[in-house]
């Protein structure tokens, strides 16, 4: 148990650090997928099967692929490598270390931190389904609406330029469509009349 935990943590943290520090963007995206997979394994180890597999499906499957696509679509504009140590770099690292220190201090002073886990709960997927359909049905609907809006919004934002360059789509598209409709109507009428 301890060894598995140590391996998973080492994998997750190493690939997370690589994901934000490597120079090649594609390597960053692949390390990000590895970090997500390590986190999914940690969830599985904690007994949250559904969340672990949802993490693999959503993050390793979808978000990592989205990041790779975005990198490939924006590939041309990469600038020359900058100096590694700059003022903003030092300030960012300092802020991150400061936040880490505050979090560690809060954890050390908490009585919760050394709690031992209760006996392992049974498979909770059935319970999750029940709760989603009863107690959390309103948040579920809201999330469905949000995902629909995000899908439509993302498509519209990413397509914006293509729509602007073309001439007015109605004037181009409606004429042949109307002509075809008229022809179809005539063909439909000739045998009967």
């Amino acid at each position, binding site marked *: 148990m301890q060894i598995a935990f140590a391996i998973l*943590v080492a994998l997750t943290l190493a690939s997370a650090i690589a994901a*934000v520090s490597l120079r090649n963007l594609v390597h960053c995206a692949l390390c990000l997928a590895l970090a997500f997979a390590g986190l999914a394994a940690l969830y599985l180890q904690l007994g949250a099967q559904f*969340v672990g597999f949802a993490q693999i499906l959503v993050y390793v499957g979808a978000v990592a692929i989205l*990041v790779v696509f975005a990198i490939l679509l924006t590939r041309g504009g990469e600038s020359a490598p900058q100096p590694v140590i700059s003022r903003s770099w030092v300030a960012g690292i300092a802020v*991150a*270390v400061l936040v880490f220190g505050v979090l560690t201090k809060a954890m050390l002073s908490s009585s919760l931190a050394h709690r031992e886990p209760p006996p392992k709960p049974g498979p909770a997927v059935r319970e999750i389904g029940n709760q989603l359909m009863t107690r959390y049905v309103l948040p579920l609907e809201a999330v469905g609406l949000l995902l629909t809006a995000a899908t439509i919004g993302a498509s519209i934002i990413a397509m914006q330029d293509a729509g602007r360059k073309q001439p007015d789509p109605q004037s181009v598209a409606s004429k042949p469509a109307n002509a075809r409709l008229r022809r179809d109507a005539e063909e439909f009428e000739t045998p009967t009349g």
Partner: protein
Amino acid sequence: MIPLYYYLMVSAVLFSVGLAGALTRRNAILVLIGVELMLNAANLNFIAFWRYSPNPEAITGMMFVIFSIAIAAAEAAVGLALIIAIYRHCKTTNLERMDSLKG
């Protein structure tokens, strides 16, 4: 058995790594990667607290993570679409060169 403390430390390190990445990198996609790492650190905290709570039968922590994953997916999709739209406009993903408000 592993104490809760270890998971919280892992989550804190992950959050700090994501924060450092979001603050120091100048590529918009890498900033988004940092934000995703921070979100995942929060999710790990939720799952750890759920597992170590006195009554894990109440699956509140898990439900929160499920909704959080859904919202993070929506955020990633919209964020990357914005990056692609900005790239079409400015021909760069470097955040320091996107400094004009007026198109």
